[in-house]
């Protein structure tokens, strides 16, 4: 279970005094597709930075087929002697930085042009209700970008200034 170190990251559902701003799409419940237009799950929650008053991650409940794909990838990789992420039963959520997602408002789904389903399948997942710490966030971003050199900024708020979280960059 993840610890709660990042106190600026909140599930929007927990913030009873906040809502998705008008003129923005509330994508909760919408399907999420990878860069090859393969459905990998659906948006379950919106993780927000309260100080910046914006969503920084989409909390995605992944499809069972993707979990199976992940198991297969894990077994294959372990067979090669490479230790990959270990996901336990019930851990079926991943986070997607908002800056790596596109919202198709007309067709009501979310997609990404950078992450394929295989990458999602190998991503470290967490169980719904678990708190998300900054290490998990950093590892997820590194995993999606395939760049383990990415370092966390001095503060999470600075981290969210990265292009993966800001559509203007």
């Amino acid at each position, binding site marked *: 279970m993840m610890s709660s170190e990042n106190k600026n990251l909140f599930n*929007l559902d927990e*913030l*009873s*005094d*906040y*809502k*998705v*701003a*008008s003129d*923005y*799409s*509330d*994508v909760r419940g919408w399907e999420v597709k990878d860069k090859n237009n393969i459905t990998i799950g659906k948006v379950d929650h*919106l993780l*927000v930075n309260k100080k910046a*008053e*914006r*969503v920084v991650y989409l909390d995605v409940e992944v499809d069972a087929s993707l979990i199976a794909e992940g198991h297969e990838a894990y077994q294959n990789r372990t067979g090669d002697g490479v230790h990959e992420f270990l996901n336990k039963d019930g851990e079926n959520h991943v986070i997607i930085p*908002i*800056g*790596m*997602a*596109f*919202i198709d408002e007309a067709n009501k789904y*979310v997609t990404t042009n950078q992450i394929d389903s295989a990458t999602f399948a190998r991503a470290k997942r967490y169980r719904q209700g678990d708190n998300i710490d900054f290490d998990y966030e950093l590892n997820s971003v590194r995993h999606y970008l395939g760049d383990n050199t990415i370092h966390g900024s001095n503060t999470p708020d600075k981290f969210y200034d990265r292009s993966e979280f*800001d*559509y*203007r960059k």
Partner: protein
Amino acid sequence: MAEIKIEKKKQIWPWILTGLVVAALVVYFVGFRDNNENKAVIADADNTTETNDSDLIAVNENNSTVAEYVNFIRNSNENMTLDHEFTNEALLKLNDATSAMADEVNYDIKADMDKVRNLANEITEDPYETSHADKIKKSSEIITNVLQNIQNAHYPSLANDVSDLKSASQSIKTDVLTLDQKSEVKAFLNKAADVLEKMN
């Protein structure tokens, strides 16, 4: 790239509370003012009613007994001989008319009228009685007093007429024979007819 902003929900409770407070104030003040207005209207209505109740000059009672006396005096004016029979009949009719008028305005004068009736009857019982003028005067005073009370209570505009009636009554002298003061008695009977006619 996507962006989803969040915003603070507009707190609806403060608005609901404000609305309730405003509504309560409106109800309180409007209700309070309405009550006052209603009370004022009721008070006005009461005043109006009281005015209408007290001033009956505009009300046409059209009492037939009153009309009978008035007609009796008007019709017999030319030929008024003022004998005892006539005086008796005139006083009895005046008595009845005054009683009828009193009934119209719910004014209890039975005791007074009984006295007048007895006095009127005494006039005919002894035609040679020399104290007829005294009895006529007493009758006129009782009737004048009753009519004045009715006037004070319900016909404020007839004050002058009742004053004239009182003068006519006072003009009747007890120590003068009735036959020698026909005009005074006739004036009283006529004035009483005027007052009753106006009240009626």
